[in-house]
């Protein structure tokens, strides 16, 4: 079975081809084509997964693809325990999302095209998972980016959606740029792109020292873009403009995890370079913390989840950086299940209540029982309450951080506390209490609730199943060795952090011990910073700085009127945040940003003139360049 693993990606590709070419005639049938293809892929993945559970060996096929004399490129696939886990995650979530979409996308005019794009995405993601070399990884990496772009901007009539698609694509390009340079560098120094051979070159010392560190950091740039790490996290919240099932599949469970998978797949780079892994660890923990603070203040249900995703991705990246290879991948797996569940639950809420703003919701639990129960399970899982899956993986991540560095561990635990708080803030505001505005919520159809239930079961049992007999450890490990010793202290502190977070949320939103809006009124400036996402967007984009500030001002006065929406925990980190705020607001936003933006604007104004839109002008430059190159090569050398 393992020998045929390469078939898995091509089934969704076939579905894509059928749906894109014959979609207009197929109409509703297109969904079943997509689902049939992905089901077959899923069954194959399952078979491979059990083969590895049964102790199958790593399998690699590396046929020659391009032979350039001394340099040979292979184009094959690699299946090992980690791949099998990823295959399961991708195919299962994709399958459930496609089933869910039958209900969610019902009646959309571009329904077949939607399934075609989903097929394309699944194909590229699976290709990424089984790639055995950097070149193939990069190609599928870009394919994933393209399909994500297509899906974010799926409702391109909406300007915000098409803008978000572009933003995601361009932001990712920054990371990919570094990634491609890193690949070229590795190729220049090692002469090969195959993962195994590069790892060998590193162990032999062909690639070492600062070059290795630089290569590691450059490759990590790709992960920063795709996994929405600081400072390229800005695209992910905006990407929520896409259809909600897409958010669940791409922007929660699979594509954003590609960055984590990349770091894991190329872990030999980081294992050999402590400096590079330190960069990974600190980027991860900073992002985890940073995104969690933004999630505290957000009021759009999908955006809260988006920030939470960024935060959890930071967690995984941090885990890889601190040496918790298995822990990071474990968290990726469990997170895929419960975050997909959260997003699909949010989709169900949006579908039923026709609003995304949690300030308008409340009391929906009475009308949407299945959604509420599954959402609650997912919240418990992400908060890390035993025995839900999130507990096991988060615990391992924290343990790895604990063994690596105490400050990172403390921030990680604090982030866990914030995670529990904002997730339950979301839950309580959405499903409990009184309905704030007149909505007519209704439960979603079965095609939507059944995937929710499947994911809910997985969110409960996945973590527990995987720790039985170190099953996950045996599948996904960097080198052979005993599992890290558990640490009871870490476990209890992490549970305590989650419980305090949930307690605080219920104190405010259920028992009203602390008045709603207490922290926001007490620290209005911090709230403003958080609700504006630390001004990072403004930092990047001067062209929208004025509208955004206007919006911020309006939001601010809006908030002052409404006793609603809250920032609660920031009091505890008041000092740190005000300092950061000062740095960002005064030095960065007002000073450097304008300068950078001015340079960029005048520069692009110049460059724009080159873009005449006439192919013949471009071709002329091409020919002139070629002629010059020949002249230089033969006459000047």
């Amino acid at each position, binding site marked *: 079975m393992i020998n045929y693993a390469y078939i898995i990606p091509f089934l969704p590709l076939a579905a894509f081809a059928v749906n894109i070419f014959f979609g207009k005639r197929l109409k509703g049938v297109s969904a079943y084509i997509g689902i049939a293809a992905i089901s077959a892929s899923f069954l194959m993945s399952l078979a491979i997964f059990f083969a590895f559970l049964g102790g199958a060996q790593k399998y690699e096929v590396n046929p020659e693809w391009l032979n350039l004399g001394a340099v040979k490129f292979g184009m094959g696939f690699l299946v090992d325990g980690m791949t099998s886990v990823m295959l399961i995650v991708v195919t299962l979530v994709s399958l459930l999302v496609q089933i869910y979409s039958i209900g969610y996308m019902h009646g959309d005019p571009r329904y077949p095209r939607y399934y075609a794009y989903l097929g394309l995405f699944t194909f590229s993601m699976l290709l990424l998972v089984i790639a055995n070399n950097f070149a193939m990884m990069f190609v599928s990496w870009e394919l994933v980016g393209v399909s994500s772009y297509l899906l974010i901007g799926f409702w391109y009539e909406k300007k915000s959606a098409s803008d978000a698609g572009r933003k995601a694509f361009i932001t990712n390009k920054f990371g990919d740029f570094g990634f491609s340079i890193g690949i070229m560098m590795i190729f220049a120094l090692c002469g090969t792109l195959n993962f195994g051979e590069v790892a060998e070159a590193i162990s032999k010392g062909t690639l070492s020292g600062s070059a290795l560190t630089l290569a590691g950091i450059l490759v990590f740039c790709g992960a920063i873009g795709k996994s929405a790490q600081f400072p390229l996290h800005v695209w992910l919240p905006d990407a929520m403009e896409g259809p909600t099932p897409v958010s669940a599949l791409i922007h929660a469970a699979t594509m954003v995890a590609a960055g984590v998978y990349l770091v894991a797949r190329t872990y030999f780079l980081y294992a050999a370079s402590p400096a590079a892994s330190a960069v990974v660890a600190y980027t991860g923990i900073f992002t985890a913390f940073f995104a969690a603070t933004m999630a505290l203040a957000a009021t759009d249900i999908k955006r809260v989840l988006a920030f939470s995703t960024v935060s959890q991705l930071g967690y995984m990246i941090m885990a890889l950086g601190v040496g918790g290879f298995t822990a990071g991948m474990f968290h990726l797996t469990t997170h895929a299940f419960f975050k997909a569940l959260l997003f699909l639950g949010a989709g169900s809420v949006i579908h039923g209540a026709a609003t995304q703003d949690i300030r308008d919701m409340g009391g929906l639990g009475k009308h949407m029982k299945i959604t509420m129960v599954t959402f609650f399970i997912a919240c418990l899982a992400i908060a890390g309450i035993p025995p839900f899956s999130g507990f096991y993986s988060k615990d391992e991540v924290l343990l790895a951080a604990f063994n690596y560095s105490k400050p990172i561990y403390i921030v990680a635990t604090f982030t866990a506390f914030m995670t529990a708080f904002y997730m339950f803030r979301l839950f309580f505001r959405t499903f409990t209490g009184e309905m704030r505005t007149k909505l007519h919520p209704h439960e979603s159809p079965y095609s939507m609730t059944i995937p929710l239930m499947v994911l809910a079961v997985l969110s409960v049992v996945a973590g527990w199943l995987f720790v039985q007999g170190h099953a996950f450890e045996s599948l996904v490990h960097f080198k052979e060795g005993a599992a890290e010793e558990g640490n009871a202290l870490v476990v209890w502190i992490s549970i305590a952090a989650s419980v305090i977070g949930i307690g605080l949320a219920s104190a405010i939103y259920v028992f009203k011990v602390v008045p709603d809006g207490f922290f926001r009124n007490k620290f209005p400036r911090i709230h403003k910073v958080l609700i504006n996402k630390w001004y990072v967007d403004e930092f990047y984009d001067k062209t929208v700085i004025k509208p955004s500030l206007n919006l911020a001002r309006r939001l601010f006065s809006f908030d002052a009127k409404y006793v609603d929406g809250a920032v609660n925990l920031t009091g505890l980190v008041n000092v740190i945040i005000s300092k950061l705020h000062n740095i960002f607001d005064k030095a960065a936003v007002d000073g450097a940003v304008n300068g950078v933006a001015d340079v960029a604007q005048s520069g692009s104004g110049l460059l724009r003139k080159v873009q005449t839109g006439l192919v013949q002008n471009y071709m*002329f430059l091409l020919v002139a360049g070629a002629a010059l190159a020949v002249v230089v090569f033969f006459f000047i050398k």
Partner: protein
Amino acid sequence: MLLLLLFAAIAIIAAILVVSMKNIMHCALFLALFLLSVAGIFFCLDADFLGIVQILVYVGGIIVLILFAVMLTSRVSSALLEQTNEQKGLAITACLLLASAITAAAFRTPLVTSFYTADPEGTTRSTGELLLTVYALPFEIASVVLLVALIGAIVLAGKKGE
């Protein structure tokens, strides 16, 4: 030998006329002349099969296609319009540079060449053998490419405007 020189001269002159004539129809006719003289060159170089393919495919097929396209698209009396764009001078310079650079590069490359001897047997037999043995797969793939292009052309040209 003399024939070769003649064909080469015709080819160059025809090629220049193809890119400089104002009437696009005349251009197409000179392109036919050019292709015929190239076929002549092929014959002189003992590539009989290739010469015949050249005449059949190019002169018989592509030229006819191009003539059709010209007739279908030039309702406007395009002969009166300027047929070249404003980057003419620059383009001439770049092309001269490129041609001289290629030639100079060829001069500098050490090549073991033989003198011209007419091969009485021709190369058709060896070409056929190679095509059906070593290059059988590429040959078949080429036919698939042609089929795809055919279908593509029908789809593109056959679709009525929206």
